[in-house]
């Protein structure tokens, strides 16, 4: 135990050296890096009360009656791997590029849209929700934790295997 306490200053200085070294190396490389383009959408205040949510049961009914367009807010890579059948991808990290295609394909602003991502704390749906609202779409709902609930309900998904 005595040995352990003697080592405290040693390992603290070691940790500081390692952290500083990696930080400054990273910082220097960062200056020369031009391919780091990923950036989450603008800072998003997660004010849940401003969004309209629907339950999984309502979403299933809308799907079966073909009365809603499902919009996947996750990254394109994840969408390609698997998504709700017939869902359109509108990734929250690439809103501007997705907008033009979406507007051309769905000019009717009164279309019933259900936005989903994956996970209870996922806020990608609300980012896409805000953007779709800015584009003029009026009937938007969020299916919280959508993809997980959809799979748990054994509803059809499209996978890229």
């Amino acid at each position, binding site marked *: 135990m005595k*040995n*352990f306490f003697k*080592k405290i200053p*040693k*390992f*603290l*200085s*070691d*940790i*500081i*050296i*390692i*952290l500083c*070294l*990696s*930080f400054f*190396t*990273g910082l220097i*490389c*960062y200056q020369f*890096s031009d*391919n*780091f*383009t*990923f*950036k*989450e959408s603008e*800072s*998003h205040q997660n004010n849940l009360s401003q969004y309209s949510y629907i339950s999984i049961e309502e979403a299933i009914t809308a799907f079966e009656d073909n009365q809603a367009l499902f919009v996947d807010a*996750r*990254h394109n*890579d*994840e969408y390609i*791997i*698997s998504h709700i059948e017939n869902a359109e991808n509108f990734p929250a*990290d690439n809103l501007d590029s997705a907008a033009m295609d979406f507007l051309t394909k769905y000019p009717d602003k009164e279309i019933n849209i259900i936005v989903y991502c*994956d*996970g*209870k*704390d*996922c806020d990608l749906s609300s980012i896409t929700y805000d953007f779709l609202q800015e584009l003029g779409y009026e009937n938007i709902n969020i299916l919280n*934790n959508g993809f*997980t609930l959809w799979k*748990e309900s054994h509803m059809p998904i499209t*996978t*890229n*295997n």
Partner: protein
Amino acid sequence: MEQEFKNHSVFTVQIILGLIFFAAGASKITDPAGFAKIISNYQILPEYLINETAFFLPYLEICISIMLFSGLCLTGASIISFLMILTFTAALIFNMARGINVSCGCFTSTINQVTDIHYIYYILRDIIFLFIAGYFTKNMLWKK
């Protein structure tokens, strides 16, 4: 004799740990954007920390591996490596419990399709790494 064997085993573990961290860092250092997506998918870190973490974490991993290979700052390197593996394992278990299957991002910055089997494999692998790092850290902290 016993002490000699122990020294050899600690050195072997040190090199294994160095290789693990080198492989982890080198695979992500060239693609911070891809790694940022993986971190974002974990849905654990706040948005403003994602890019910074994606950029600096691989450098930290490489730095730790260099320390482990060179034998410099070994005590600090052992503690950081143990804490990092502990954090990664906890993040995987946390997301599995939440039902979010995300790509591990452990040795690649590519997003893959992940099933529960993959997830269990990732967690078991991380637990083995945790034991390796724990053994090494213990020997660094309590060696005479």
